[in-house]
């Protein structure tokens, strides 16, 4: 015994600690915070009356974005464009003659923190509407808070659908405005064998259920479906499987850094965009630079906005954003969608002539805005918006260029009820309004 056993014991302890830190990271904190959120929610069950103060000449709105933690990189950009929208509106006379005052909260990349901060914004800071959220888990954590307090959340991200809360407006794409057009494009290009690769969490899993249903109904075949743990950087086996699967296109729903490792492996294994193109659902202008444009050049993306869109509203948006935040900053779909959501709220309020949540909701249907992505229109029934879909190709200038666009804005259909091939999907999820997954 002696030295060896001491070293061994130390080793075991190191392993245990490293494992807890590396893998379970925020495990303990989250459960406690969640419990607190639950306690609070049962305590304040009765207080659904709004405390929004509309007597002065300002009106408060809340932003909840992750300004720290792993999601901060992405969510900071959304917070920036939200601020820009508010500044523009204030410079233009405000909403119903009132200047907008921003209350910014940090969601800290933790779903439970999002719920807690949303509650603070609504109940303590008395904001008229909240903008923000990024991950589906942050939205799902906030949803009960907004429903219980009858408040308004504007959620900017494209997402997996199968949800439609009366208290949330979804300004990002529903699956039929992003995933379905991407598949339509692949089908049109004659691709028949799809390989699916994604990070192991709610968006890729649900998105791929849609892909599989689509493939089955449209004479395509899914030849492989692989998920990696979040942050995973080993793609040898997955790329091997991809090469041997006979796939002629890849549908990519990987998140963050995993994309870098995946595309490096893909390229270094001799695959290329002209033989087996990859269409990505979460690579926007921001990500292209950090993945390395050499690794993703000529690959495809599916979004509802690119910085390169050629219309006067977008030119103004890009110009103002760069003037405010720096020439090197690109604009991307989530940022544009967040920016648009502030204007949609303004228009709803002006149509309702009130900041009252129920009146705003009642006025929402049919509200339009000439957004940088093209004209958008709110669907009052499911609270999503009509959006044009664009398939883009990544250029060597690190920007994404449109290669295909839908015939005008597509009506939002979060449950894919209007698609024959999706019957099995909507049947299995129609009972669980937003509470599933």
């Amino acid at each position, binding site marked *: 015994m*002696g*030295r060896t056993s001491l070293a061994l014991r*130390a080793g075991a302890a190191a392993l245990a600690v490293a494992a807890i830190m590396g893998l379970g990271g925020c495990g303990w904190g989250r459960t406690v915070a969640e419990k607190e959120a639950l306690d609070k929610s049962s305590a304040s069950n009765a207080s659904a009356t709004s405390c929004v103060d509309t007597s002065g000449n300002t009106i408060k709105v809340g932003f909840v974005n992750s300004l720290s933690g792993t999601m901060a990189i992405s969510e900071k950009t959304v917070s920036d464009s939200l601020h820009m929208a508010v500044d523009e509106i204030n410079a233009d006379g405000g909403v119903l003659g009132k200047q907008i005052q921003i209350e910014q909260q940090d969601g800290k990349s933790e779903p439970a923190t999002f719920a807690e901060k949303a509650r603070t914004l609504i109940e303590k800071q008395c904001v008229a509407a909240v903008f923000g959220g990024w991950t589906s888990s942050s939205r799902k954590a906030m949803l009960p808070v907004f429903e219980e307090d009858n408040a308004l959340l504007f959620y900017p991200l494209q997402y997996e659908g199968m949800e439609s809360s009366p208290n949330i407006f979804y300004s990002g794409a529903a699956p039929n405005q992003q995933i379905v057009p991407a598949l339509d494009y692949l089908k049109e290009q004659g691709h028949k064998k799809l390989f699916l690769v994604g990070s192991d969490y709610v968006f890729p899993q649900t998105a791929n259920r849609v892909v599989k249903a689509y493939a089955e109904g449209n004479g395509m075949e899914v030849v492989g479906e692989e998920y990696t743990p979040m942050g995973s950087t080993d793609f*040898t086996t997955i790329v091997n499987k991809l090469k041997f699967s006979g796939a002629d296109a890849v549908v990519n729903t990987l998140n963050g850094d995993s994309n870098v490792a995946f595309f490096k*492996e893909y390229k270094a294994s001799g695959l290329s965009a002209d033989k087996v193109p990859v269409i990505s659902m979460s690579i926007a202008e921001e990500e292209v630079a950090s993945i*390395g444009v*050499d690794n993703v050049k000529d690959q495809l993306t599916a979004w509802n906005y690119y910085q390169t869109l050629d219309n006067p509203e977008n030119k103004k948006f890009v110009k103002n954003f760069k003037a405010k935040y720096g020439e090197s900053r690109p604009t991307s779909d989530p940022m544009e969608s967040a920016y648009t959501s502030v204007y949609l709220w303004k228009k709803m309020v002006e149509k309702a002539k009130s900041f009252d949540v129920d009146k705003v909701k009642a006025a929402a249907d049919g509200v339009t805005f000439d957004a940088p992505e093209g004209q958008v229109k709110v669907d009052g029934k499911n609270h999503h918006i009509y959006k044009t879909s664009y398939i883009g190709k990544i250029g060597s200038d690190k920007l994404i260029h449109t290669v295909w666009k839908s015939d005008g804005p597509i009506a939002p259909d979060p449950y894919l009820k209007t698609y024959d091939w999706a019957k099995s999907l909507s049947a299995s999820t129609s009972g669980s309004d937003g509470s599933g997954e």
Partner: protein
Amino acid sequence: MNMLFPQIVAGLSNGSILLLAALGLSLTFGQMGVINNAHGEFMMAGAYTAYVMSSLIGGNAASLALALVVGFVVAGLLGLLLDVLLLERMRTRPLDTLLVTFGVSLVLQQVARDIFGSTGVYAQAPEALTKPVTIFGYSFPAARLFIFILAIVCVAALYAVLKLTPLGRQIRATSENRDLAEVSGISTKAVDHVTFFIGSGIAGVAGVALSLLNSISYNFGTSFIVQAFLVVVAGGVGQLKGAVIASFVLGLCQSAVELPTSSSIAQMSVFLIVVIFLQFRPQGLVAIRSRNLA
């Protein structure tokens, strides 16, 4: 369409990555008993060195070669600094080093974030390493072949230093019996510093090499640190041979399990295999036969 061969190659490649990540650790942890949680951040320092070099010189072979040397020195100096400032004061308390170095790793991550930003950066690799090479009719990433060769070279170099040089003898003597080494005229303090410099430097080299495969960001090291410890403990603490065998066994296991299942299952199964293995052989693959009576 036989995936057996490519998967064996993938497994060997995974093994060489594990080995490269664990090699420096097997020196600092194995020989010195320091649980260095900041090992991953030394790798990160190496990765950022590759980025700085490729932005200064351009993505060519010269910049990679230079990055390997500079990365070794940068990470080595960081390690030396850590050893001189903190770890020297806790030689007899290995468990304390665990917490201290974890703190250091957080500090280093924040420093990296402040200098390079929280978004990943992109280092252009030499053209030849972004292409596939063909081995027995199967195309395989050149960067992985390079990493495989580099891992073998590093092991051979470290082995030679430990077995053949006076410094190596001093390192081994210090690790086997510190007091006896001291009375024999070895300055164990100086030997510790050098050992830690080399171990950390190897982490830097690993960082430069692995930046060819991954994104370079402040959390670069966190994806390797757990598996590196796993390799060192499973291999047998203080044994190079054990670390080499353990890396390749675990690498091959991972790609074998991932083939019929998924990446999540494969990562979990590696942990499971090690846990079960240590139940039967807590001393690891290769045990030290020491006459140490302490």
